[in-house]
C-alpha cells in the first residue's frame, strides 16, 4: 500500500514551482512537442484493421443472416436481390462500427476499409444498399500527406510523408469453419419442408411421393454452405451443424 499525501508548500517551494511552470511554458513555446495532424490536408495513417466503412463481396456471401443477427444496433437488414438471395444492407445512421458482422461472416464476404470521415446531409442517405457496398466508394479527399505516429522509448513524434494513404485494405478474407447440416432425429421430422424452403443454396431437398405418401428428405453435403438457418428454423430442432 502506498500513501499519497498532499504536500505542504512553503514560500520558496511556491516560487520554485512558479518558475518551473513558467519555464516549462517558455520552453514549450520555443520548442513545442507538436503532435497535430492537419486533418483536411493530411490524414493519419490508420492500421489495416481499422474499423471503417464496409465492403461486400456477393460472391462470398452465403446469406446466412449472421451479420444481421449479431448486429447490436440492428443496423444490418437483409434485402432480397433480384436473384432472390438475401444480401446485407447497412444503415450507417445506426452502425456503431463494432464489426461484429465482419467477425461473424463465415464466408468472409464483408471486409473493412479505412473510410470513416464522412458527413451526410440527410439521414436517408445514410442507408447504404447492397449495390453500393460492392465497389469502394469515393470520398472527398483534400489530403496530400499522411501522418504516422512514431512511438519510441523517448517520445511520440510525427512522421510526415507526402503521399495519399490507400483507404482500401487488402486482407485475406476468413474462410470460416466448413460446416454441414444433418438430421439427428429422423423420427420426429414433421416433413414440413421448412429446411428446404429456407435453404438458399438448394442443399436441402424434399420430394413428396404421392403414391406411398412419403417425403424423401435429403441434405446435399456438397451444396450445403453450413449457414445454419435450417438448424435454427427447424421447429422440432432435429437438425444440427457438424463439421464437413
Amino acid at each position, binding site marked *: 500500500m*502506498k500513501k*499519497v*499525501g*498532499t504536500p505542504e508548500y512553503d514560500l520558496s517551494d511556491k516560487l520554485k*514551482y*512558479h518558475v518551473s*511552470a513558467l519555464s516549462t*511554458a517558455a520552453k*514549450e513555446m520555443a520548442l513545442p*512537442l507538436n503532435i*497535430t495532424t492537419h*486533418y483536411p490536408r493530411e*490524414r493519419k495513417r490508420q*492500421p489495416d*484493421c*481499422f474499423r471503417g466503412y464496409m465492403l461486400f463481396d456477393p460472391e462470398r456471401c452465403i446469406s446466412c*443472416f449472421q*451479420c*444481421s*443477427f*449479431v*448486429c447490436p*444496433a*440492428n*443496423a444490418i*437488414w*437483409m434485402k432480397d436481390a433480384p*436473384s432472390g438471395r*438475401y444480401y446485407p444492407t447497412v444503415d*450507417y445512421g*445506426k*452502425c456503431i*462500427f*463494432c464489426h*461484429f458482422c465482419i*467477425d461473424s461472416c*463465415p464466408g*468472409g464476404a464483408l471486409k473493412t476499409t479505412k473510410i470513416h*470521415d*464522412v*458527413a451526410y446531409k440527410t*439521414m436517408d442517405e*445514410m442507408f447504404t444498399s447492397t*449495390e453500393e*457496398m460492392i465497389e469502394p466508394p*469515393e470520398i472527398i479527399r483534400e489530403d496530400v500527406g499522411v501522418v504516422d505516429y512514431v*512511438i519510441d522509448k*523517448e517520445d*511520440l513524434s510525427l512522421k510526415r510523408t507526402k503521399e495519399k494513404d490507400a483507404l482500401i485494405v487488402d486482407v485475406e478474407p*476468413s*474462410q*470460416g*469453419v466448413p460446416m454441414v447440416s444433418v438430421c439427428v432425429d429422423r423420427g420426429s421430422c414433421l416433413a414440413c419442408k421448412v429446411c428446404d*424452403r429456407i435453404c*438458399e443454396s*438448394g442443399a436441402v431437398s424434399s420430394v413428396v411421393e404421392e403414391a406411398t405418401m412419403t417425403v424423401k428428405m435429403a441434405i446435399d453435403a456438397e451444396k450445403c454452405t453450413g449457414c445454419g*438457418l435450417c438448424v*435454427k*428454423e427447424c421447429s422440432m430442432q432435429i437438425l444440427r451443424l457438424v*463439421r464437413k
Partner: protein
Amino acid sequence: MENPNEHIDFLESGPLAPLKKWSAKWSLWPCHFITSCCGVELAHAFACGYDGERLGTLNLGISRQSNFIIVEGTITRKMARALQFVYGQMPDPKYVNVIGACGERGGIFWNSYNITHPSDIVPVDFFVPGCPVTPESLLRGVRALQDKIMGVDKKTIEFKKVELPFEEKLEERMVPTSPKIYAPTPEIKVDVKRVVDWDFGKELEHTLRKELKGLFESVTITGKDRIAIRTTPENLIEVARKLKGQMNFDHVKSVNVIQVPHERKFIVEYVTSSYGIEELMTVLVTIYTEIGIKNPKIPSLTSVWESANYSERELHEFFGVWFEGNDWMGRKFVLAPDTPDLPLRKEYKIPEERYVFEKDVEPEFMVPIEPPKDLYTPIWEEFVETAPASDEIVVPIGPHHPGSGHLRVTFRIKGDRIVDALPEPGFVHRSMEKLAENKLYIQNVPLFERLAINDPASMNLAYVRTLENALDVEVPERAKYLRTILSELSRIEAFYYDAGIFSLFFGHTTGFMYCMAIREMIIEPLVHISGSRSGPSFIVPGGLRRDISDDVLGMIDNITFAIHKRAKKFESIFVNNPVTIARAKGVGVLTKEDAIRCGMVGPFLRASGVNYDIRKVAPYDAYDKVDFEVTTGDDGDCLGRFLGRLEEIRESVKIVKQGVDAVRDIKGPILSEDILGEYKEASSDIKGSFFRVFGNLVLPKGEWTTITEAARGTTLFTINSDGESNVPYRVRVISPSWMNLKGFMEAAKGERYADFWAVYGSFGYFPPEADR
C-alpha cells in the same frame, strides 16, 4: 406579409453577402454542448491531436456567443429540452451538426425508451456517422458545413452502384425469424445454491444464521464470496441493522429490483459489503425479499445505508416500487417528465429488431411526436421556495453550462458558500438496463462499453467477466495478461481524461491539452489492436477477439517509457502549479467515515483512507501475478483525490510493463476452448466464427454478480438468467460514477461556489457512466 428581415437583406443577397458567408465559414464557434460520450472524441478533435481551431472553430462555452452546435450523440428526452433551449438562445445564423449514431437513428440505443432524434428537435445540417465518431470525421463534418455555407453542394461520399450477380431466380424463400429466444414464464431465482470450495463462507453462513436468528427465511451460498439472505419485507430493516451493527457491513454496493410479472412479484435486493473488515471485503451479501406486484411497498434502507439512497430513487421510477422512508418517492430523479411510466417493467415493450428490409415499412422509433413543452424538469419546490427566507440564492448549473457536462446541479448559495446541492442526473440516461434485456448476451458487449467511452476496456471487462463467471470459463494465460494490459491502458486513458477535465475546470487549457496528447498516445496502440479509437469491444467471453502482434506489444512497451516525458511536462505546468494547489488543497474534504457512508468507490474511496482495491482484494485476470501497490491517501480532499490517481497511473504503467514482458514469453491461444467448443480454429482469431461461437450463449440459471475495478472504481454487474433464454432476464449495472454521485454532492456542500468545479473535477464524474 412584411419581411421582418428587410433591413438586413443586404447581408443575405447584397454585395456584402459573400463577406458574411466567408466570415461564417471561418468562424464557426461551437457552443460547448456536450450531450453524451462522443464528447470525448470532440475533446480530441479540438485538442492537440487534431486541433479543430485550425479551421477557425473555437470551442466556446456559451450559447449566446456561438453559432454552431455539435450534438454529440444521444439526445435523451431530458436533454432534448436543453437542446431546444440552447438552440433558441443562439443568434442567427446558426448551424447544427450531429455526430455519432445515437443522434441519427439511435445507434445501439435505437429502441431505447428515453432517446429522441435531434433532427426532430432542431434543423440539422450534417450527420456524421460513427460510434463514437473519430476526430477526423468530426472535422469532415465541419468542412462539409463550411462548404455548405459557401453554397458548394458536394457529397462527401459517392457510392458506385454495381449490379448484383444474377444467375437464376431462386424461388421464394422463407425468411428466418429472430435469433433471440425468450423462455416462457421463466423461473427467476436469486439464490441458486452452489457448492463451492469456500471455508470462510461456511463459517460466515453460520455466523449469519446465528446473528439473524428468526429474521431470515433462508441463507444460501450462491457462489464463491456470494451469500444470499432471504427475508420478509417486515424483517428487512431489522436484518439490515443487524448486518450493519453486528457484522460491520457498512455500505451497499447495489440495490436491485427484479420484476417477475408472471409470478406476480417483485424481488427487491440489496447487495452489501464491508470496507471495514478485511475478510469481508470480497464478500457480497445479498439481502432480498419478495413483494407482491400490487401496491408494492417496502421499507427503505436509507436510514441504515445512505449509499442506497439514489439507487432507491432510481428504482422507484423504473418499477414503481415504493421505498417507504425515502424522501424522494413520487418524484422524478433520472427520467424526464415525458418518459413512459415504469419503463423497466416487463409489460413495457420496446420495439423489436428487424432483420429483413421491407420497403415502405418505417421502423417504429420511440421519439416524442411533439417536442417537449416545458423546458425543464421542475426543481424540487421546497428547495426553491424556502431559499429567499434564509437569504440564499438558487443557482442551477447545467445541463448546458460550460463547466457542467451533462448533469444538472441546483445550488442554494449563501454568500459564496454552497448550502445545499441537489443533483439531477439522467441527462444521458440511455436505458441500458432495459436494452440489455432485449439483446443477446454478446450484443451487450458494445452496449455496456458505452457506459464510459473513455474507459472502454474496463467496462468491457466488467461485463464479460460476469458472463465468464457464470459460464465457468477459464481464460487462457496469454489472454489474461493481454486483458490486464488493455484494462490498465484504459485506466490510464480514463485518468488522463479526468485530469484534463480537472484542469479545464480551473480554466487551464494547457493542462487539458497535455492530457489529451498523452491520451492520443495511448489510443494509438488501441487502434492498432482493435481498429477503433475508443469503442474497441475487444474483450469477449473467454478471451479476446484476436491476438495482438509483437509490433503492437513493442509499441505499448515504448509507451510505458515515452509517457514520462509528457507526463512530466503536465506535472510541472499543472499539477505542481501553485495555483492548482491553492485551489484544490483542503477543498471538498470527504472523511473516511463519510466516504464509507456515501458508498464511495475506487480511487475516491482510497483517497479518503480506505485500502480497498478489487484488483488486490479479489484479483482477476493477471492481477495476482503482477506486482503493484494500492494507492491510498489520508486527506480526502480534491488534491488528494487528484494526486492519488496520478500515482495510480504510475502503478498502471508498471503493470503494463510487467504485462508486456510476461506476455512475450507466453504463447498460446487467446480464446478459451470451453467457449469455442467445436470451432477450435478460432483460438487466435475469432474472425469467421463470431456468431457461431457467441450467438447462442445461455447463462446457467441464477443471479450472477461480479465486481470489477474500473478506472473510476467498482463496477458491479448483476445478471439474472433463467437458464433458458439467450437474452438476460435482467441486468443491473452499478457504475462507479453513479455510486460516487452521493459523495460528490456531500463534498461540495459547505464549500465555496467556485470550489464546486474543483470538487467536480476531482471526482472524475462522467455522466454517461453514471446515468447508464
